[in-house]
């Protein structure tokens, strides 16, 4: 926090530079079949109030019983964030009235969370790595959903989400720009998805963030912060921060002061607006939930979970750099999704890894992005892309033809080798045939030949002509060699 401000991240105001300070509270829905304290299903998209147990509806005399799978998921996540796991933690009641909160309190962890301090390393596009401190992670219940648009004068309540387990992951105020924050949430999402502890599906509300924003002059103490509640996409998180930082700077530069308050982000208008101020803030009257004993487990329990953790993105990235000689950036792109990394590894195995990385990142990702497809939905499997790379390596096809072949495989499907055979895409390697074409071109262009003898750069023009007349099927290296010999350069 006391590191000098990075100039590139400062925001220019009318009266000089400002530094924005951001901390995030990310709410990640735990991947589990049942809710945190009841056996009801967590499945998304059921009929309203179809996944509601007596406990979720807070019927009289009902008691919560902790779902051990949710505890394991929280521990796994803590381990993935290199965080301290607390062998004893306590569930508290956070008391407030709301129609979609049946108990009149949310069971959460207040003073003693299950996971303590940890860290996430966030790679920025410019090559910088931002270290984001994790303050804590705790388990809590989600609320239900109020529906205000179903009836002219009444609100409806859907309790399907009521009691679903959430992990609240609280960062330290270590982020200094909207890009930092977006990259951090992206990284968190990657880690959660690798661990299988949250599906990270923001459209289903599986990942939401409360964003704390303040601004200050570089080097000065922290300013007053505002909390923007429940922002539900990475893009919106960026927009909300940009807007909120500008708003606060505007107020301060006009000689005003920032009121500590809770704000909402309006994605339609791209702005934040006040929800409630400090005076209206709830007094949640936290106290330990007497229905639940403190949550306790031993180190062996944690160690067992640790032993079965998958390879995490940072480790995988380091391995890709080390074992495949990839650039840190390329490795970072490839490990951002576990499925992508797996795809890449299948293609790269026993092949030119750098070439494989190029193909996966440029051709495959480019095409997937263009069509808005997920890697799981790629029409070209890792085996087929590997076959294309093998055809290049054997010299059967040129890189250019390979791109055409990729296109055919993408839109029509089929085995790359069979397509090459069937469509006569094989590279011409017969030097006699190539020499014939070279001879023709040389004979037809005496002036260019004369120029080429003094200016070697013209060799490229000759190569182009030969490739053109052969339909791209000749080996460019062979053409190059023959032309040099023929032209005597």
């Amino acid at each position, binding site marked *: 926090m006391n590191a000098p401000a990075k100039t590139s991240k400062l925001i220019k105001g009318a009266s000089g530079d400002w530094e924005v300070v951001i901390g995030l509270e990310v709410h990640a829905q735990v991947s589990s079949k049942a809710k945190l304290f009841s056996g009801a299903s967590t499945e998304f998209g059921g009929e309203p109030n179809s996944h509601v147990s007596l406990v979720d509806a*807070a*019927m*009289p*005399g*009902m008691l919560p019983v902790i779902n051990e799978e949710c505890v394991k998921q929280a521990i796994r996540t803590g381990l993935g964030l290199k965080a301290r796991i607390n062998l004893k933690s306590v569930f508290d009641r956070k008391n407030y009235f709301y129609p979609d909160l*049946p108990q009149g309190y949310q069971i959460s962890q207040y003073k003693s969370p299950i996971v303590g301090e940890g860290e996430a390393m966030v790679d920025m596009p410019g090559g910088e790595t931002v270290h984001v401190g994790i303050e804590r992670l705790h388990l809590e219940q989600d609320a239900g959903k109020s529906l205000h648009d179903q009836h002219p004068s009444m609100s409806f309540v859907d309790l399907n989400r009521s009691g679903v387990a959430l992990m609240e992951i609280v960062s330290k105020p270590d982020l200094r720009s909207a890009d930092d924050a977006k990259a951090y949430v992206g990284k968190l999402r990657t880690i959660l998805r690798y661990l299988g502890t949250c599906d990270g599906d923001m459209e289903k509300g599986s990942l939401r963030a409360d964003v704390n924003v303040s601004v200050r002059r570089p080097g000065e103490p922290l300013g007053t912060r505002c909390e923007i509640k429940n922002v539900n996409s990475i893009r919106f998180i960026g927009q909300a921060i940009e807007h909120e930082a500008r708003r606060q700077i505007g107020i301060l530069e006009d000689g005003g002061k920032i009121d500590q308050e809770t704000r909402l982000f309006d994605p339609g208008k791209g702005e934040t607006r006040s929800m409630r101020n400090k005076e209206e803030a709830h007094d949640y009257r936290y106290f330990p939930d*007497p*229905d639940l004993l403190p949550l306790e487990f031993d180190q062996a329990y944690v160690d067992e979970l640790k032993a079965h953790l998958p390879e995490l993105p940072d480790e995988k990235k380091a391995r890709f750099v080390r074992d495949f000689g990839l650039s840190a950036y390329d490795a970072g792109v490839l490990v951002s999704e576990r499925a992508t990394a797996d795809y890449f590894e299948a293609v790269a195995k026993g092949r030119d890894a750098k070439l494989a990385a190029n193909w996966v990142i440029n051709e495959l990702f480019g095409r997937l992005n263009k069509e808005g497809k997920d890697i799981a939905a790629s029409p070209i499997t890792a085996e087929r892309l590997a076959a294309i790379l093998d055809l290049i390596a054997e010299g059967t096809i040129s890189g250019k033809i390979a791109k055409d072949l990729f296109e055919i495989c993408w839109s029509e499907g089929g085995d790359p080798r069979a397509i090459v055979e069937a469509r006569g895409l094989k590279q011409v390697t017969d030097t006699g045939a190539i020499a014939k074409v070279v001879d023709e071109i040389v004979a037809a262009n005496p002036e260019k030949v004369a120029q080429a003898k003094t200016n070697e750069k013209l060799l490229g023009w000759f190569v182009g002509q030969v490739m053109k007349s052969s339909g791209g099927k000749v080996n460019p290296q062979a053409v190059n060699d023959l032309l040099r010999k023929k032209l005597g350069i």
Partner: protein
Amino acid sequence: MAELTSLTISDARDGLKKKSFSAAELADAHLAAMEKARALNAYVLETPERAHAMAKASDARIAAGKAGPLEGIPIAVKDMFCTEGVRSTAGSRILKNFIPAYESTVTANLWRDGAVMLGKTNNDEFAMGSSNETSHFGPVISPWRRKGANTPLVPGGSSGGSAAAVAANLALGATGTDTGGSIRQPAAFTGTVGMKPTYGRCSRWGIVAFASSLDQAGPFTRTVRDAAILLRAMSGHDPKDTTSVDRAVPNYEAAIGKSIKGMKIGIPKEYRLDGMPAEIETLWRRGADWLKAAGAEIIDVSLPHTKYALPAYYIVAPAEASSNLARYDGVRYGLRVAGRDITDMYQKTRAEGFGPEVRRRVMIGTYVLSAGYYDAYYLRAQKVRTLIKKDFEDCFNAGVHAMLTPATPSAAFGVGEKGQADPVEMYLNDVFTVTVNMAGLPGISVPAGLDGQGLPLGLQLIGRPFDEEMLFSLGEAIEQAAGRFIPQKWW
């Protein structure tokens, strides 16, 4: 057949076994008695159809030689227990029409063992009270009257209906709940036996919560042996209540008649209050003498933090209650009073749905948990609680097997006599019993005599955690010496 209602559970069990009478006859006798005793207001709901059906099923199982441990025994259920398909109100207007779709674990255990449900008994609203006067359904009138007077007396509370039903022969036994004395105090007021087991012995699942860390279910009966029989059926680990303890349930009845020779019984000096009636003092001494005569060793002990127990209790219990009762908001079930908006609806629903004592405790609880007051009240009360627990542990570790104290500071009082001007006057009823809940220990109230006006008085025995057996042995010794106390029928 009238005498069927005056049987003990153990007698009735023998009679059913010998086919001296049927479960149906036993149930009918009780249903008839209940009908004649409506002046007591002990039951808020009689369930004759269910009783008939259950008794019939019991007779069939008896005939088939498949009788359970409580087969055919008619039982009354405090209205704090949720009973499937049977209205369960907690004595509150807010749950006046609430019919649960589930059965509490404790009552399910009773039906599993063959017991027959007679109905639901009256209690103070959400079990908050010591006289059964805060019930939405009106006060319960004690079957006891002062000698030569007909002033209506309270049966104690909050389990006043269960206590009155057992005392007036309207059930062979009844369930109660005890958060600060709600079983033991009404037992003492009605000449019945009331046992609050160790916290965690009975499942709280399906019992309307008052103060979760203090609430325990327990039995009301006319003899100590019956209490042992009933508690065995009620107890047991329940995976649905994580505070219930996974520990085998002993055959408590085997403790009845077991020698108490050499047992060390502590007399805590802090329970000798200023201004305590001489009769209570005498009763207490007499109780000690009886135990001594039966071979126990009586020793003076000190529980130094006793005086802080009552104030600490009246912080912890309302704090938990304020949160536990937040679910009664008119949104999903129970009373709803329409309002301009959601806040107005909450306010109107809760203002009309809760009676004054419940509202008072919700407000106290909300206050003591509020920012700025939490440390001074709630946290401090929890520290006191730890000290109270330690006081007991120190004595038990020094070899004391159980404590003997009065159950209440006085005999029953008249309806409307106490707590009208100052609620604390009512709260003082629990002075001897709250410590036991705060420490999570088992406690039993056993009838030990009558006061000068002919009203029953009880003695309380407090045991080590999960040593209910010791309390049954000692309690029975007192019962043997003191005899039983039965009210003159006037209703």
